[in-house]
């Protein structure tokens, strides 16, 4: 069963949100998503300085088997992207909640987010 990190919040499209200092949030995709996608071989992230909108696509995640849109769970300006996952997308499979983070946003607002418990029960994830 895919792991769901208990300290994070989640969107219905399987992105996770981690709160940092002030309005800064980090965004990644859950292990539910990485398990379903299979081995990720390419990731297209929003550009630093661009604005992303909650619920709208902001990139793509491509695995050996499929391509999926990346939806931003929050609205705001992108301040940083994880260059490590661009050059080595396998990091997203190996450590989706850690080294596989995707981008950081100064959030003005956020879309509907689920607690880890809600997300886990909805998607059959493992909270422990």
């Amino acid at each position, binding site marked *: 069963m895919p792991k769901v990190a208990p300290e994070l919040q989640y969107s219905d499209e399987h992105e996770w949100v981690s709160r940092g200092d002030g309005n800064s949030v980090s965004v990644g995709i859950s292990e539910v998503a990485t*398990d379903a996608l*299979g*081995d990720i*071989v*390419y990731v297209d992230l929003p550009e630093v300085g661009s604005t992303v909108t909650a619920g709208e696509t902001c990139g793509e995640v*491509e695995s*050996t*088997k*499929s*391509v999926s849109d990346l939806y931003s769970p929050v609205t705001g300006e992108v301040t940083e992207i994880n260059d490590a996952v661009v050059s080595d997308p396998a990091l997203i*499979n190996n450590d989706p909640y850690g080294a596989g983070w995707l981008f950081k946003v100064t959030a003005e607002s956020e879309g509907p987010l689920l607690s880890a418990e809600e997300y886990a029960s909805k998607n059959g994830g493992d909270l422990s």
Partner: protein
Amino acid sequence: MTENYTALYEEHKKLGASFTDFGGWQMPLKYSSELAEHHAVRKTSGLFDLSHMGEAWVTGPEAAAFLDYALVGKISAMAVGKAKYSLICQEDGGIIDDLITYRRPSHQEGTDKFLVVPNAGNAKVVASALLERAAGFDVVVEDASAETSLIAVQGPLAEAILLRLVPAEQHALVTDLKYYAAVEVPFTFDGGTQDLLLARTGYTGEDGFEIFVANDSAAALWQAIANAAEEGELTPAGLAARDSLRLEAGMPLYGNELSRQGNPFAAGLGPVVALSKEGDFVGKEALAALKAGGAGSTSGRKLVGLKGLGRRAGRGHYPVLKDGAVVGEVTSGQPSPTLGYPVALAYVDVEHSELGTALDIDLRGKSEPFEVVALPFYKRQR
């Protein structure tokens, strides 16, 4: 569609497989990482459950003549012990399925015996087409798909691993077996010995074997093969790896590259069609007309290999473009795990099918550069 389970379903569950529906069967898509499974087959070996494939036995005094009529190849010319890749076509030349036919020794004088292996989703259609075409021939067609399991061991270590289950004095049966040939080999497993049909065939581009076994012995054989392998020598591999392996090897998949709407010449399978064989066969007239009309060479579309110059992969049904105009469609595509760049099979207008032609694939609105390259994409070192 009814859900079918192979006799190895419990083995896959024990191994933690993720399942997918394929041709009405619940099949392992992958056990852990499809990339790791793919690389294992190229470098060591992989263990596959192919029990979803069909098996139809064709026996009788006119079995060879019947298969010459029912299939597009010259089956009667096969020697006993050999295997042959062929097609079963409709009257209009459309492809019902691609299949492998094995000629087996017949123990009854004046009778020939063949095993026909169609794809999972087509097993029933092929069996009924064979039955229908058998009218007027002295032949018996038996669909043994429901009782028969098929296990494949593919990769450079496949032979060495299987030999551990075969008595030493019989090893030459395996080591002398040529590509596209089959032989009955005694396998020791589950506290006994069984003669099983072993074929040196596969769908991965590697050396490898396929073993036909009765359902009630399939799990024991699967476990025996797994136990015969040392740590790191053999990896269970699912359909995801099977698909990426066959794509690198440039092998067509029914439903992607082959269909009732397509024809053998466009698919690059012209040489499989024996137009000059004696007598009539189903689809002959239409296929002769297609060939005379230059199908796949001077008219229509042709199946080609495309190599991605960027990092993005083309996927099934994505349009292929030349200077912005649609000139074809991708049938299969993904990043090649072995080669490290995207590969795709696509039907393109024959005038854009020359090797080296620069084409684009429309990746959901973004054009990505590709180049027509020779097939297969990957060829193993011998």
